[in-house]
């Protein structure tokens, strides 16, 4: 029975691990912290696994573990965070390098938001949860979710400045970046 549990658990991690890391890096701001957060959350899930109805929504269960673990356990950055007013230049204008640089700036901007705003943005726009579902995960009202989302997006837009505008979808549905 134990071996069967382990194999099913491992199969779940292999199937969803990549997605969990992506959510975690938006919550924590860097990949090392994301790995720590996902591992810590998976240990908790593993402990509870024998009691779980594994036909249920495991993602929802693990999501709640990750958010609560992140709430009580911060991966602080033990240095002054300097605002990245200018994007780091890629050496040769390579598109991949530029996207990686943009990704780093976005993660840093997100990491500087208050924890609750950050959690709302990640759950709404990375996990694509409804406002009601986000409220349930975070244990707050839908109104609070709306307020956090509004303030978080506004702050993110202010901090990212030109980079946000470059990615903005214009009226025709094509991104300005794609056409630029």
């Amino acid at each position, binding site marked *: 029975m134990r071996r069967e549990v*382990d194999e099913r*658990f*491992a199969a779940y*991690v292999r199937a969803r691990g*990549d997605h*969990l*890391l*992506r*959510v975690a*890096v*938006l919550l924590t701001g860097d*990949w090392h*912290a994301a*790995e720590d957060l*996902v*591992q*810590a959350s*998976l*240990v908790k899930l*593993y402990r509870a696994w024998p009691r779980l109805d594994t036909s249920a929504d495991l993602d929802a269960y693990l999501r709640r573990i990750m958010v609560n673990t992140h709430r*009580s*356990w*911060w*991966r*602080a*950055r*033990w240095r*002054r*965070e300097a605002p990245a007013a200018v994007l780091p230049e890629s050496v040769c204008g390579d598109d991949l390098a530029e*996207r*990686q640089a*943009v*990704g*780093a700036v*976005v*993660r840093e901007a*997100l990491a*500087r*938001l*208050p*924890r*609750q*705003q950050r959690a709302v*943005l*990640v759950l*709404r*726009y*990375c996990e*694509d949860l409804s406002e009601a579902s986000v409220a349930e995960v975070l244990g707050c009202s839908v109104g609070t979710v709306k307020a956090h989302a509004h*303030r978080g*997006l506004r702050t*993110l*837009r202010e901090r*990212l400045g030109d*980079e*946000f505008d470059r*990615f*903005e*979808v*214009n009226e025709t549905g094509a991104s300005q970046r794609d056409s630029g």
Partner: protein
Amino acid sequence: MNDTEETARRLFAVATEDVPPGIDLLRAVRARSRTRVVRARALAALGAAGIVALIAGITLSAAPAPSAFAQVTRAAARTAAASYTVRSDQKIVAIGGLRSKPWATAYGEFDTVHGVGEFTDNLGAQIRWVAGSTYVFLTDDLRAAYQRTGPPIPAGVSWEQLAGLPLPTGGPAAELGMLSIFPGFLGSVDPQDLLALLQSATDVREVGPASGPGWTGSAYSFTVATKLNGPVHTPVSLRGTVDVDQQGRVRQLDGQASFATTVSQVEITFGDFGRPVSVSPPPASQTWVPPGS
């Protein structure tokens, strides 16, 4: 979903594209499973009589575990006496009936041994402790307060110097004459004073394990209710949870602090113990010493 929300989705997708190679998510789970197996085999090898002897030996030789109260108060004193960095989220939820302030994220460095420290938040507030003085950045709120009550702030200055007001030692709260009011406009309490308050904790109870990057420990709930040792004897209370690591240091404090009519939510993470801290006073040309300070 509107354009802004859709743009956020696209940016988050870009921000999560570059997953580093070689991440093994199952590593921690496997390690935990192996530890259980090793322990089970070791105990099985002892046999029943061996296990009884082992338990008896442990019981006779182990010192009594310190109480939850001792764990927390000692941890607060030890942390306050060291050098550390903090990152905190603070929100003033009520201030004499006025509208609450937004969440402020702050970063700080403290070295009690050398009496230097610095605390800065994302709303523009800054405070520095160096050379026996406290330097407070004159935010718009502070300037407005001085405009109402005086004295007038000279032109061209950005900081006020409170001479003879060094970094709080984080000693017992009974010695606190005032709290170092974080200059985000009243109410937010700096970490040294929070650690001082924690040493007056009552009703301390262990509530479970705690862990973080590179540390494990225990979580405790606590309550603090005291009065400052100043002329007004302002009531102060703090209640919440604190995580203490196995080296006896405070790692995380989440709670609600009440100071007079101001109530703040605080979530503070401590780390980087023993790290050197360097703080410089602001330029003298930008510094003002208020009369009577």
